[in-house]
Structure formats: C-alpha cells, structure tokens
C-alpha cells in the first residue's frame, strides 16, 4: 500500500505543477504582455481557466494531506524549517485566488479592476517562485535540524542561490506551460502568433534558468548533475525531454496540432520531475550532513498508510471520471486552429 500512496503523492505533485503551473503561468504571461494586448490575454485566459481553476489547486491540498497523514515527520520538518517561504507562498495563494475571482465577479467594473489585476499578476509570479524555493531547499542539504540560532535554523535553511535559481526556473516553466495551453484557446491568427512567440520566449527562459540552476548547484556543492545523469533512467528521461523539446519547436514553427504540442510540453515537464526525483528516491528531504528523510523509513504506521491508500483509491474512482468530463466539456471547442 505504501507504493500506492507514494505514486499518488508523486502524481499529485506532478499534476499540480502541470495544471496549477499553467494556471500560475496565466498571470506570468499577463505580467509580460504589453499594455495593449493585456485585455485580450486576460479574457482568453479567463475563458480557458475559470471553470477548472478550483480543481487545479486541489492537487496541492491532496499532496499536503498525503504528507501529513502518511509521512508526518517529513511534513513536520518541512513546515518547521521552511516556515517563512511557506508563509510567503500562502500569501501568494490567497492573494492570487481571491484577486482572480474578485475581478471576474465584481458587479461594478471600475478602477478596482486595476488593483485586482496588479495583485493577480504579482502573486502569480511570487507563488510559483517560492514553490520552487521550497522544493529546492528540501533537497539542497541546508536544513539543519540541530541548529538553534534563528538564522541558521529558519533562514539559511532556504535562502541560497540554488533555491533562488530554482525559483526562477519554476516561474519560467509555469509561463511556458500557460503559453502552450493558451495557443489552442484563441481564434484569430494575430493572437495565436503572439502566444506562440510567448511560448518560445518562455521556453528559452526555462532553458536558460535551467542552465543557471546547474551552474549554481555546482558552485554550492549540490550534486545535481549526478542526480540527473548518474543513472540510466535519469539519462533516458533527460534525453527524452530534450528530444521532445526539439520536436516541440518544430511543431510550433510548423503549426502542428495543439493537442500534440500540449502533450509534448507536459511530457517534458514530467520527464524533468521524474529525472530529479527518481535519483534520490525514496529520500525526499535531504538535510545537512547527508542526513535525509525517507518515504520508506519515515512513513506512518501500516494501518495509517493502509487507510490513506484506500481513501485515495476510493476518491479516484469518484473523482477521475468527473474531472475528465469537466475538462472535456469545457475544452471541446479548442484545438481547431490548424483548420
């Protein structure tokens, strides 16, 4: 049953990055859109995302619940030592979710819209940035459970160039996913070109920040290259991601089918996550001095894991068909631009 639970945890994280990421990306794209195109971007994004945005963010909650029910030590350690970035991320989540809804449901359209837009756009940037920071800090070996002074226990546990680089990388990935997603959502040629351009820019940004992450990891002594290339699966996953990248650019230039482009983009991100996590599985938190928290050794008692697994399986039977129908119903009309 423990494996069922781990698979769910991983899938929830992946889906949060893909779906929630595309959702954050919507705001990031808006941030980097010129003033005259902003309104169009906004309405297109809104049409595409509004019906599913609540569902997209449920994946985070699932991941958290799996952590605290199944792996309480890991949850407790992360939330103690990464308290500050977590709180900042929470503020981002609050600001974003409410601003998004408020601007669409405010009965009067006036200057308040500007306020909502600004909050939405900046929190769309901050939230995934700190998500990246948190993920990076969890594996960067900086958390020190024995530290007693404030700075080393609660600040330097997450503040490093490596985590900052990963933060930017996460932001770029989100922007990229959103741009890819939105290409299929617009009707006219002009805007389609615009979004394709955005997708390319974001992809370049992601590759650049990816490279920066490598350099910084190297200088801070984090064996990232070893994680990625140290074993066969990692190499295969990274190669597959690179190949799909090439294919993706080809399709973007050639106006390939939207659905294939989307699958390719999702595939890339999946491969990157797979390569990073598989190498040090089952250790998901790596702390100072080579100590780690492992999904196997720090799991809750069997009975807790068992009922968690059952609850997840039961939930999927109910959720998945409904979710697919939702996505299908509101996406029926997209993806027709090659005609």
């Amino acid at each position, binding site marked *: 049953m423990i494996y069922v639970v781990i698979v769910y945890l991983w899938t929830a994280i992946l889906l949060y990055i893909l779906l929630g990421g595309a959702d954050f990306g919507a705001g990031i794209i808006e941030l980097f859109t010129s003033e005259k195109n902003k309104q169009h971007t906004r309405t297109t994004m809104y049409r595409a995302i509004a019906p599913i945005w609540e*569902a997209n*963010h449920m994946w985070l909650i699932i991941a958290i619940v799996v952590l*605290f029910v*199944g792996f309480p030590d890991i949850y407790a350690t992360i939330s*103690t030592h990464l308290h500050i970035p*977590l709180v900042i991320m929470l503020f981002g989540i609050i600001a974003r979710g*409410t601003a998004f809804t408020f601007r669409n449901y405010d009965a009067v359209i006036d200057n308040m819209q500007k306020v909502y837009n600004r909050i939405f756009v900046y929190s769309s940037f901050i939230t995934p940035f700190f998500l990246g920071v948190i993920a990076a800090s969890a594996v960067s070996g900086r958390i020190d459970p024995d530290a007693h002074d404030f700075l080393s226990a609660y600040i330097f546990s997450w503040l490093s160039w490596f985590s900052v680089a990963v933060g930017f990388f996460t932001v770029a990935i989100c922007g990229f996913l959103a741009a890819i997603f939105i290409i299929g959502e617009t009707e006219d040629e002009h805007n389609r070109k615009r979004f394709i351009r955005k997708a390319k820019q974001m992809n370049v940004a992601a590759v650049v920040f990816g490279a920066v992450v490598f350099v910084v990891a190297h200088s801070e002594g984090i064996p990232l290259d070893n994680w990625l290339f140290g074993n066969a699966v990692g190499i295969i996953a990274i190669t597959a991601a690179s190949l799909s990248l090439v294919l993706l650019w080809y399709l973007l230039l050639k106006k390939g089918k939207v659905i294939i482009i989307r699958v390719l983009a999702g595939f890339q991100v999946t491969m990157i996550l797979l390569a990073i996590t598989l190498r040090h599985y089952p250790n998901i938190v790596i702390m100072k001095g080579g100590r780690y928290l492992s999904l196997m050794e720090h799991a*809750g008692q069997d009975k*807790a894991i068992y009922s968690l697994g059952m609850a997840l399986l039961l939930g999927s039977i*109910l959720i998945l068909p409904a979710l697919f129908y939702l996505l299908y119903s509101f996406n029926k009309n997209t993806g027709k631009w090659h005609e």
Partner: protein
Amino acid sequence: MNDFIAARSQMGLSLGFHIVFSCIGMVMPFFMAVAHFYWLRTNNIVYKNITKAWSKGVAIFFATGAVSGTVLSFELGLLWPEFMKHAGPIFGMPFSLEGTAFFIEAIALGFFLYGWDRFNKWFHWLTGVVVGVSGLVSGILVVAANAWMNSPAGFDFVNGQYLNIDPVKAMFNDAWFSQALHMCIAAFSATGFAVAGIHALMILKKQNVYFHTQAFRIAAVFACVAALLQPLSGDISAKDVSKRQPAKLAAMEAHFHTEPAAPLLIGGIPDVAAQKVNYGLQIPGLLSFMVHGDFKTPVDGLDKIPVENQPPVSITHYAFQIMVGLGMVMLLIAVCYFIAILKKKSWLSRQWLLRMFVIATPMGFIAVEAGWTVTEVGRQPWIINGIMRTADAVTPMPGIVYSFYIFTAMYISLSLIVTFLLYRQIKMVGKIYDVKNQAV
C-alpha cells in the same frame, strides 16, 4: 503577547475566518438548488434571477473559502508541528476523505457556475445539488477530525508512544456525531438568517420587492427550521460534553463547586480568584437535570479538576452564554415566522416581522464563532484532550507574533473587500435583475 499565545490566536483567527466561508459554502448551494428548481418547474424568471444573483455572491465566498482552507492545511504544520507529527496519521482519515469531497465540490462548482445553457437543464441542476452535498460531507469530516481532539480514540497511548493506530476508529470517536450534527444545523441557521436578513432589509427599503420577497422566503424557511432544531441538538452536545470533558462543562457553566442539585446558571460574571459567580440567575437543580436526567445527582465542578488542567473559565462561560442566548432569540423568531405562515398570513406583510429578521442578520454567525470558542478554549490546556498539551505542540520557531500581526492584517483586508463586493452585488440587483426590464 508571547509566541505561544500568538500561535493560538493565529490559529483561532484563521479558523474563525474560514468557518464563515465554509458555512456559506455548505448551505448556499441548497438555497440555490431550491430557487433553481422553482425556475425549472415554473418558468418564472425571478427564480432564475435569484439563482444567478446568489451564485455570483457564492463564487466570491467559495474562492475565499478555498484559499483560507488551503492556508489552514499548512498552518496545522506551521504552528503545531509536534501535534501533527503524532496526530496526523491518527486523525488523518477524515482529511484524506475530505480531499475527495473537496475535489468533487470544485468539479461540480465548475459545471454549475459555467454550465448555464450548455448542458441538459436537470444535469445542470444536479451539479448544484452535488456542490451542496459534498460541501456538507466535507464539513462533517473536518468536524470529525476536531471531535477527535476533544475525544481521542483509535490508538493506545503507552509511555508517550502512540501505538496500534486505527484511523477508522479515530474518525468515529465519541464526539463526532453530536458535534457534526450541531455544526451542520448551525451552518444552516447562520447562513439562513444572514441571507434572509439581507433580503428583508431590501424589502423594507422597497427595492425590487418581488425579487427579494421570493429570495427571503427560501432562506427564511431553512433558517427557521434550523433554529428550532438547534437547542435540541445543543442539549445532546451538552450531555456529551459532560461525559467526555467535565472540565469544559464546568467552565461553560462557571460551575466552581461540585454540589447536588446543581443549578443552571444564566448570565453572571465569574470571579475566578474568589471561585464564585456574581449577578447570575440560578435555576436550582436544572443543570443536574440537563446532565443526568434528574434534579438531584451532583455535577462535577472545577474543584474536581487540578488547577493546571482547568480551561479559562470566563471566556468559555461568556462564549457559551452568547451562543445559547442568540440561539434562544433565533428560536423565538422562528416560532413567530411559523405562526405567520401557518396561522396568521397577515403577519407576513408586517414590518415588525421583517425587522426582526434584519436584526437577526449577524446573530447566527456570532453564535457560530461563540460556539467554536466554547469548544476550543474549553478544551485548553489540551490540544489532544488528556494526551498532549497545547504548549508542547507549538512550533519552536520564534517570531510568531509578527506572523500573527501579518495574518491579522490580511484577514481584515480580505473581510473588507468581501463585504465591499457583496454590497456591490446587492446594489446591482436592481439594474441587472429587474423583472420589468427583462424579456421573459
């Protein structure tokens, strides 16, 4: 303020904020389903307008409820890591099931809000009902988790270790039923009175009277039925508390001394130093009767509880008085309303009846906050009743005071914005939904 108090205040603040939105999230879908149903059956456009107007307000509340809930699931770890380390696997069952309920709710909400004219109309109606049912289920599940903190079950506590965990037993602990029942009814009465009160105010102001009258009727019936049931379920809760948490019951009643034929105390100012109550009204024997079913059997007082295990008496007592007092007022209003619809139709058009509802607008929510204060403060100093102390569970991180200030500022600004948006929605009803201007 020290970090420990700050952590407790931050938790209480976040929960007190969230509960408002979750009550609305649980109950409004049912109101909308009724209005929607009338629209589908009668084709009277006003019902469609009511459904749509409500659903716009609800979308705002849902988003705020969802983000504040997300904050809570992190805060449990951010503020109480030691508690979650041990309690997570034990009381996690309801949370993992709740994930499913939330998910279904979010999906159904997507269909409901964005599905007008896109789907079969009864399918669309049904998605609205699903939103309500899954909201209610998730409410019941979280309350079951909270009930476990009051009435821990499903594990053996041996030498500080939590052994033989049984999450299913933990979920069906002794307190879950009485708490979940009382909470669900409370959600209906709080939301019902709030909504009915707002529409009553608009009727009194003679704006869109037809629209607001229909909306008022739907909300008022729900509210009043709930108000009738509330004291009954409260009585079940009180009996339950007396069995599992005598200290909490004693604090609720400011019952300092164990005595036979214990009196029920109404009002009064507890003087903890002197161990007595000033100015209260005492009804002899009634507390014994309510707890044990006869007027003679003694009820344990605070003197039976070691001082270090006593909850704060004054807060618990005042909160309890507020809840029960407001419950009685709402009961009275409900009785009047039922007399009006069953016997004296003429009352329905009287101003005083509507005025009562206007006055009652915030009462349900105040009672909800007070009720949770009774439950949570009355459990102190324990975070898991009799097992773990709250002080031992708090995060070691210093500086929580600042975090509390920031969160307070944020919740205040969110409340202001939500109120402002709601005000705008109501103001626009006249423009958007005036039946005269609308082609049927």
